[in-house]
């Protein structure tokens, strides 16, 4: 590497870093103050990019049009963010905080389809930045002048934010709320205004990032999901709610990306997640974050207890599941197997997030390890199918034992992001290790043994596996172990003082969740006959999260209910309309607003009333 190359690569990395910083600082801000995990942040970024594209063409301002368009698009997106906060999020602040996540997930779907509907699905190349379309020679190489301007812009925005936070009253309140929002509320500050303004500012920053990206990147309808994970990584590495941290982390990630290209070209998928995992293991609150105060209200993440399903109802459902399937059309048998697998998958996550208060963003790792464990054994060791079916979940449990050891040292969002990092590392391994895992072409021919291969027979295998899994989870949650886990969730310090080894309990819960998540993955693999890296991908981690929340996080029964509702919605909406994202997202929004504590959570509240 020549010094000139190092310099150019550094500059390239910095330009990327500045766009990342804009997006991540907005996300961090929203996160820090409102505790909303805003999945829709990437959608705002995408929306602004498309708006910039259209406005640039429409504004009769000549060369200046692009720059005006960027500002207008960012402002428009800020208004959208503001509207989302006032119209939707505000209705669910009283709900357990995760329900806002479900709402933003629904928004991602809706905005994706709106963009596809308005602008079409073909890729678009935006305008170049007038006056900055060319390049300048640096150390004998051409470097885009636009990127140089971006590099300068990043610190300017950072300075403006610094001024806002440290020199205005509003900023002081924001910083105070980031540290302890209950205290700020107790002192009489109007939280609604604070939250709304933060949401608008955060969205504005996402929009600015989106607009400024237009000259550098093609516009696609998937640019929302590609940016959001990276933005979360920056936020967490930098430290939640810290703008300086976001800047530092963005530079770190951008520069590591740029040099990774030279040093480890095949590791591009995973490098930033390895960095995040290392940072979180060494500094659990991010580079410039502060340790979180323990939540004052017990069980803030979960809040209250929902209904437990009456025994007669459970028995009736089991009876139906045993008796009816042979009389159903074949597709419904297949669909039921899928629902069963996801019911178990969601329930295993419930043990972590419901009983344990540990929200995992990487539960797909368990699912994927279960599926791959079984598939690899069949492919390479020619293990008979029934044996592989048992071994798959054990592989997932083993994986969970290792990753859980590191994860349970962290709490809340940092825990979530570390699980995400591990899931992404597993993803990268199955994606890259072509000789063993088949890479993205996956492993085919993972079918049930011949005597189990008919849909109805395999259905009973799945029913047995998932039924036993669900029953076991239910027992575990009600056993002293589960109750201790709840105690640790609601007040870790007090539980610790009573002599409970909190981390050990959490680690065991992680392991059990891994085992049953793996069983779900194995069941699913034999249903589909193949395994692919996307079994370990981010959407696969988000799905059970959505299901648990949809059904009601308070009770285990919510998980299978949520799984059934979500799978049914997903399957049939996709069949009836091209715009399934729009319809599914809207239905989810309606359900969340109507049942702000999940379907069973609302029924529980009603019963008590």
């Amino acid at each position: 590497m020549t010094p000139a190359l190092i310099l150019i690569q550094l500059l390239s990395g910095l330009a990327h870093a500045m766009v990342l910083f804009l997006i991540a600082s907005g996300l961090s801000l929203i996160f820090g103050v409102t505790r909303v995990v805003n999945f829709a942040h990437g959608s705002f970024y995408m929306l602004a990019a498309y708006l910039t594209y259209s406005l640039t063409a429409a504004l009769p301002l000549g060369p200046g049009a692009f720059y005006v368009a960027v500002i207008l698009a960012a402002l428009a997106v800020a208004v959208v963010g503001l509207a989302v906060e006032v119209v939707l999020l505000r209705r669910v602040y009283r709900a357990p905080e995760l329900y806002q996540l479900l709402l933003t997930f629904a928004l991602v779907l809706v905005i994706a389809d709106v963009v596809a509907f308005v602008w079409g699905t073909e890729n678009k190349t935006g305008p170049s930045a007038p006056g900055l379309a060319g390049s300048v020679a640096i150390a004998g190489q051409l470097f885009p002048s636009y990127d140089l301007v971006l590099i300068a812009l990043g610190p300017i925005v950072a300075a403006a934010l610094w001024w806002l936070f440290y020199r205005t009253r509003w900023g002081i309140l924001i910083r105070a709320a980031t540290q302890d929002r209950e205290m700020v509320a107790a002192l009489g500050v109007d939280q609604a205004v604070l939250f709304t303004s933060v949401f608008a500012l955060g969205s504005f920053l996402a929009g600015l990032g989106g607009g400024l990206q237009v000259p550098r990147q093609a516009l696609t309808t998937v640019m929302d999901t590609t940016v959001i994970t990276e933005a979360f990584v920056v936020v967490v590495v930098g430290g939640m709610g810290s703008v300086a941290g976001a800047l530092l982390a963005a530079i770190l990630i951008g520069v590591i990306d740029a040099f990774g290209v030279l040093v480890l070209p095949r590791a591009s998928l995973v490098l930033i997640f390895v960095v995040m995992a290392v940072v979180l293991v060494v500094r659990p609150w991010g580079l410039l974050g502060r340790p979180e105060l323990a939540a004052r209200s017990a069980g803030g993440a979960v809040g209250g207890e929902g209904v437990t399903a009456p025994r007669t109802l459970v028995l009736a459902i089991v009876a139906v599941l045993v008796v009816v399937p042979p009389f159903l059309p074949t597709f419904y048998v297949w669909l039921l197997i899928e629902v069963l697998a996801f019911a178990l998958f969601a329930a295993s996550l419930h043990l972590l997030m419901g009983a344990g208060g540990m929200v995992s963003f990487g539960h797909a790792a368990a699912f994927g390890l279960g599926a791959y464990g079984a598939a690899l054994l069949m492919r390479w060791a020619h293990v008979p199918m029934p044996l592989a079916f048992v071994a798959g979940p054990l592989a997932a449990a083993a994986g969970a034992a290792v990753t859980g050891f590191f994860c349970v040292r962290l709490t809340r969002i940092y825990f979530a992001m570390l699980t995400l990092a591990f899931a992404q590392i597993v993803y990268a391994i199955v994606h890259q290790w072509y000789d063993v895992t088949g890479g993205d072409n996956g492993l085919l021919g993972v079918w049930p043994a011949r005597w189990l291969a008919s849909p109805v027979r395999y259905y009973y295998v799945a029913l047995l596996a998932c039924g036993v899994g669900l029953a076991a989870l239910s027992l575990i949650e009600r056993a002293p172990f589960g109750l201790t886990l709840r105690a640790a969730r609601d007040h870790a310090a007090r539980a610790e003082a009573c002599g409970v080894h909190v981390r050990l309990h959490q680690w065991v819960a992680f392991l059990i969740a891994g085992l049953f998540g793996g069983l779900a993955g194995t069941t699913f693999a034999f249903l589909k006959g193949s395994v692919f890296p996307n079994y370990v991908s981010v959407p696969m981690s988000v799905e059970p999260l959505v299901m648990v929340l949809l059904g009601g996080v308070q009770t285990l029964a919510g998980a299978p209910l949520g799984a059934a509702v979500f799978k049914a919605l997903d399957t049939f909406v996709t069949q009836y309309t091209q715009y399934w994202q729009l319809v599914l997202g809207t239905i989810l929004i309606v359900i969340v607003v109507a049942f702000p504590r999940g379907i069973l959570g609302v029924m529980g509240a009603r019963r008590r009333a």
Partner: protein
Amino acid sequence: MKGTRWLGWLALMLTAVAVWPAAAQSPIRIGDINTYSGIGAPFTGPYRAAVEMAVDEINGKGGILGRKVEVIFRDDKGQPAEAVKHAQELVASEKVALITGTFLSNVGLAVSDWAKQNSTLFVAAEPLTEAITWSKGHDHVFRVRPNTYEQGRMLADKAGKMKHVKWATIGPNYEYGKRAWETFRDRLKELKPEVQVVGEHWPALGKLEPGPFVTAILNQDPDALYVSLFGSDWLGFVREAQKRGLFQKMFVVGILLGEPEYIDPLKTEAPEGMLVTGYPWYDIQAPAHKDFVARFTKRTDKNPVLGSLVGYVTYLSIFDAVRKAGTTDTEKLVAAFRGLKVETPIGPITFRASDGQSTMGAWVGTTKVDAKRGVGIMVNHEYIAGESVLPSDEQVRKLRTGG
């Protein structure tokens, strides 16, 4: 709040209603699974438009075997497992005669394996991986589009005659990118043993941050660069490469990059002088093709892209197979597809009996910006038929049993 809760119950109830099984009907039904949202959308939108045109045309002529044709489209969302679910549903509930479509290679493979297990006919339209018809091939799968091996070979045959010795490559980090490069490189080395590879770059699909890659390539100083990026990765790469003068410093070969899907969005920024495979629809003189373009443009107000042609050819092939079989019985359809000869807008193609690969070819040419239309086009192009680059039946037999 009360009102919204009612809405919630209503939403749940509507779901329950929607779940009720639909009754089977009499037309010939074809199940089409494709990535209609997300990454495949730029290709599959025009594909679907052409499919609908083909179906309307055949139904206008009274259908096949006296029955109308009906296509049921399903979006696989780019996920193999989702595609398998649709296959299950289409076959079991909608009683389709066969499954077709699929865009991504791994989705194609998953559906193909399901079709093998369930003895269903699967006509893969677009996925490019060779494995579909070779190492993972089976009796019930056929494929329309020329695969990675064929297109890589077409390009290598031209590039092998050129002076460039030092090569680098950049492609998406998945099977398509890797195979697209390996087949090209191996053939190139066969033709020109002095070829050396100075750099390989594998950014994550759909997540390319182009600047650092362009610098890295420039610093390896190759004579030529082989590109298998596509979609948004390719568009972003072009802009960054233009600014940093990459196209002036090296010769560029791009697989698929002459396809309107990927060159049209670049407008006048399309790099000139690249050797590409693609689809010069504006230049193909065959009357049947001119007619196809006219009808497609009239219907959609857009020019066709390769996806449109593939969709149209796929359905013409299916219609012919049904006609030849005289029934929609799977095994008879499979027999009809073996060696089936189809008259398409670009001339006759054959589904080879040995592996089910069609002999549809591709155009190889050089890119140039057409100032009048304001987009990049292919010039000096040549249609290379599949027959001339496909391995012999003997080699195919080895590939199919070895894997």
